[in-house]
């Protein structure tokens, strides 16, 4: 601290005294003297930026303790940003508006965050030792509630965003049968993620956080109970409403059976019932390949599997 102060005094003295410390400054002053003559006393040469005096192992959180704009003289990184001049490179950081405009996270480096955590530790309670893994957390607490608290320097401690409550639950933790699960997924729509099997409910319609939390829990309960009920009109579910392809009673099954019956008729094999045909190996094969094709989309392997099954079904030989 003393050292810094002394250095600063030297710098200030250097302004107002004629012999310059470094040769570069001398040259600059020479030039400015030559160029501007009488104005030379009024021109101040630039002091070197703070970056040149920064140690490599300095405490960065004291340079940027809070969110601040990008200061090129305080950030010792050779950053260039912006559209390059033709045949050139992007402009440097000095006086670069692009760098100042964008938000930066120079105040949130990992050591800074460690310090924040250390400061907050006094206000936190211990994590329960029994919950030492994600699976255990999920097993004991399947419903996750997420709320955010906002702190800002201002006249009021209230923030309207603080009332938002997010509820997350995995459907595998709920007791749902096949019909109930499909109905629930249809009821919630976009709030369900198929890849992670997580239902997310975000509530913010009430003014207080507690009210939103209660509403979220109420929604979950209602969804659960409603999905278990079967309404009268659910029997009118058509093929377009189905989530996945079901081969039974589809046109594919009809076509296949018709074709097979015609083939059998030409071969004069009578008394072959539909059930026998359905149970036969070729039809099973065909059924599986069509289901794979429709549910998983078309891939090379799916198409070749379908081709093989159709060839077996229709008895087409490939050998010349």
């Amino acid at each position, binding site marked *: 601290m003393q050292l810094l102060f002394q250095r600063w005094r030297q710098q200030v003295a250097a302004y107002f005294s004629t012999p310059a410390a470094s040769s570069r400054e001398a040259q600059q002053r020479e030039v400015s003297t030559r160029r501007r003559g009488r104005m030379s006393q009024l021109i101040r040469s630039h002091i070197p930026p703070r970056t040149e005096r920064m140690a490599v192992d300095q405490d960065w959180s004291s340079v940027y303790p809070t969110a601040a704009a990008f200061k090129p003289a305080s950030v010792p990184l050779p950053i260039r940003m912006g559209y390059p001049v033709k045949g050139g490179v992007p402009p440097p950081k000095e006086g670069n508006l692009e760098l100042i405009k964008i938000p930066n996270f120079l105040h949130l480096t990992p050591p800074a965050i460690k310090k924040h955590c250390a400061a907050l530790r006094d206000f936190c309670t211990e994590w329960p030792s029994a919950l030492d893994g994600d699976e255990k957390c999920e097993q004991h607490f399947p419903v996750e509630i997420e709320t955010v608290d906002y702190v800002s320097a201002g006249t009021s401690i209230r923030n309207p965003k603080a009332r938002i409550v997010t509820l997350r639950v995995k459907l595998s933790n709920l007791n749902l049968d096949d019909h109930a699960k499909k109905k629930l997924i249809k009821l919630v729509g976009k709030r369900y993620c198929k890849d992670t099997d997580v239902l997310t409910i975000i509530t913010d319609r009430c003014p207080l956080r507690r009210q939103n939390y209660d509403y979220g829990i109420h929604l979950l309960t209602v969804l659960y109970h409603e999905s278990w009920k079967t309404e009268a009109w659910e029997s009118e579910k058509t093929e377009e409403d189905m989530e996945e392809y079901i081969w039974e009673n*589809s*046109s*594919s099954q009809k*076509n*296949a059976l*018709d*074709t097979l019956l*015609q*083939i059998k008729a*030409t*071969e004069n094999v009578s008394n072959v019932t539909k059930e026998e045909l359905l149970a036969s190996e070729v039809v099973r094969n*065909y059924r599986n390949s*069509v289901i794979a*094709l*429709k549910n998983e*989309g*078309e891939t090379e392997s799916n*198409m070749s599997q*379908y*081709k093989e099954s*159709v*060839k077996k*079904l*229709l*008895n*087409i*030989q*490939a*050998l*010349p």
Partner: protein
Amino acid sequence: MLRSVKGFICRPLKLDHGYALHMAAKDCFSSVVSQDVQTPAEKPRAIFYTNESDPIKTFQEACVMVRKPALELFTYLKNSNFAHPVVRYVIYGERGTGKTMTLCHVVHFCARQGWLVLHIPDAHLWVKNCKELMQSSYNKERLDQPLQASFWLRNFRTTNEHFLKEIKTQQKYVWGKRDSTEQGRPLGEVVEQGLTRVKNASDAVGVVLKEIKQQCCLGSFRVLVAVDGVNALWGRTTLKKEDKSPVSPEELTLVYNLRKMVMNNWSGGAVVTTLSQTGSLFKPSSAHLPHELLGKEGFDALDPFVPILVPNYTEREFESCYHYYLHCRWLQHEKARTEDGKEELRFLSGCNPWQLERLSAPL
């Protein structure tokens, strides 16, 4: 307008695996087929030329490269049991890999064997850009397309002359107050009727298809139904009725009859179709798999079918195509003859037949 027929170089010795020749035009094959059918007893080294679009004119010959998918189809067709219901084959693949050419090759093969060939060069032409749409006299809800129907009837007549004399109608058809076709008349009369009275052309097409379907079950002749761009039958159309409401495909007589033909409730032949994205309506250019192009309706209608994938050129096929171009002096650039040039062509085209043709055109 009869296409002037001059000849077609046919080298059966070379039309097998080893040496392959490549053709580029897509839209003139019915005339090529007609040559073969007209002279069925021709010696193998018969020479025909056709006077059609560019590469054929320049090369003075029409050549087809023999590739695996076509050979596969030939084995299936040879081994198929004609008492069973017809098997549908769907040729699919990415853009420019040779699906239409494979179809043409199959058409040629069947024509050589004496089958009756119902070739629809491009079904997409029937669902877009039709100038005249008339209400059908047979069924009030349907719409006729006299121009397309008469065009097709003309081609059909050229390709299948001798069949038209053999097949007889099985019932009486009344075209109008004064025109009617009695039972037992040759099918050629129905075709003539359609051509002279253009108003009845679409219905004539329907009658032709119905008769052929009924009679080929008896086994006297085999029928090949070759449709290019079969996904047009189940998609959307760009046609509008007079009150500007859109027309769906089943309201068109031609499409309705063709759909019935493509069903597998008859026997004694085969149905070979291709899926085509170029020319298809309202489909993204990356779509090439059956489900994407046919849609749910089309897939369910054609199911069960045998899908046949046509890939890009293999190494060998690329080599032979390149050598053919050199042989015909299509590639004029000096550097094209070098190894480097060949590698460059291979890289730029990605072994895609269509790309290769486009690249070599200015060379």
